[in-house]
């Protein structure tokens, strides 16, 4: 018997946020560097292991000098993770990436657009990840029981309740409703979706509705109460069938 080994097909992406310190050099650069050295003598470990953003909005530097500056800082154990207030045309490899947000480009003629970043990305030969299609999670999952008076609505899809739905609580779902406990409150499923269903482990519901058709507790067959059931729509009538 052969088993197909699937290759790893996904790369994980995370988004992260953290604080970075910004260093803003001032002209003339040589004086600023010597001042920095004097400061580093008093507290030598200050920049070790810290992410630093270089804020160049106060100085105007050509690309070569920016590269030299990052090297100078590197030799002082200062790691520059990005440049703020830079020029998007800098795209030499080995240079910290410029940031568009959080600061302004010195060169006002440069286009502050998304394709500026794309250019940088292209230069580094890294394909920008396709933005995930704007899709909301279709099902709403509730881990706790729904109490009397609580109202849950998910018009985009299903509602799943891992617990019971108390009398006086109400669930409205665009899709189906799944209750892995006793359903004592109201379940209103399938707004405009006749194929939606309601499932529950223990039927004690006050009201069941699918696509506008409803049934109150009085209309439910007594022998179905307390049982695990599914409710579906057959033409113009609600059908409850036991699952056990």
């Amino acid at each position, binding site marked *: 018997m052969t088993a197909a080994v699937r290759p790893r097909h996904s790369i994980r992406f995370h988004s992260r946020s953290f604080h970075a310190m910004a260093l803003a050099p001032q002209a003339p650069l040589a004086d600023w560097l010597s001042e920095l050295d004097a400061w580093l003598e008093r507290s030598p470990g200050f920049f070790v292991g810290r992410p630093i953003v270089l804020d160049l909005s106060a100085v105007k530097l050509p690309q070569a000098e920016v590269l030299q500056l990052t090297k100078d800082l590197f030799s002082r154990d200062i790691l520059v993770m990005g440049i703020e207030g830079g020029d998007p045309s800098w795209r030499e490899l080995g240079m910290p990436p410029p940031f568009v947000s959080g600061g302004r480009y010195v060169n006002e003629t440069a286009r502050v657009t998304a394709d500026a970043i794309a250019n940088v990305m292209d230069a580094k030969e890294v394909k920008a990840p396709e933005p995930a299609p704007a899709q909301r999670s279709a099902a709403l999952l509730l881990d706790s029981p729904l109490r009397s*008076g609580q109202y849950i609505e998910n018009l985009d899809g299903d509602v799943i309740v891992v617990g019971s739905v108390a009398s006086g609580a109400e669930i409205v779902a665009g899709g189906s409703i799944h209750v892995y406990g006793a359903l004592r409150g109201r379940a209103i499923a399938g707004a405009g979706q006749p194929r939606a269903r309601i499932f529950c482990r223990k039927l004690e519901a006050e*009201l069941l509705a699918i696509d506008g058709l409803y049934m*109150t507790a009085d209309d439910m067959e007594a022998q179905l109460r307390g049982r695990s059931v599914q409710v579906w729509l057959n033409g113009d009538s609600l059908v409850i069938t036991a699952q056990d």
Partner: protein
Amino acid sequence: MAKVLVVTSGKGGVGKTTSTAALGVALAKGGKNVVLVDFDVGLRNLDLVMGAERRVVYDLINVVQGDAKLAQALIRDKRIPTLSLLPASQTRDKDALTDEGVARVIAELKQKFDWIICDSPAGIERGPTLAMRHADVAIVVTNPEVSSVRDSDRIIGLLDSKTEKAERGEHMEKHLLLTRYDAARAERGEMLKVEDVLEILSIPLLGIIPESDEVLRASNIGAPVTLSATPSAPARAYFDAARRLNGETLEMTVPNDRKSFFGKFFGRRAA
């Protein structure tokens, strides 16, 4: 001529909902067309006490907001054809009740019923004020204990200032309904006596409902005492109160169950 009656108290747990249901049944049995309106939005218990919780589809909020017609929301009692219920909503916010919406619903109910009995929520905030706003008659439910009496006094003040009748400068008809009364314990000084309560509140007495297990039992089976336990002492007291509401003059008595007679007997021996 339709009459709007509000059952109110200030303090919670004194028996507003129980009394609303019991009086509603008593009035309806007397041949009047009665509707019970649950104003306790957010909590909703009148349908439980009336045994109609399994038939609720639309509620007062739906009607007030225009999502449902009044006829769709009214629940006809299966036992008494002249009795209906307009339930409250549990899932909706109590702020969903608007002044104009309530006024419209009450006006519509007045066309159809002789008695519109509004079960007020406890407290002195917006909910109780909305429930009492359009009332012609008020029943203040009080237990024979000081905190209940003080809150009732506060509510009487509101009835005299926050209702439409009061704002028009008319007299608001108010009645006291003393519930959970135990004559033996009052005699021993363990609870306030009827005279003490009347002296503090100084509004006419509509009835004295004796403390009885029947009331609790009736609430739990969804049938008010006036329906399920008609020969019992609390049921007789509610029927008398309903007759007084209709303008009859009856002698005020404290109805007694046999059990409470023995309680009185033993109580005296111990003293």
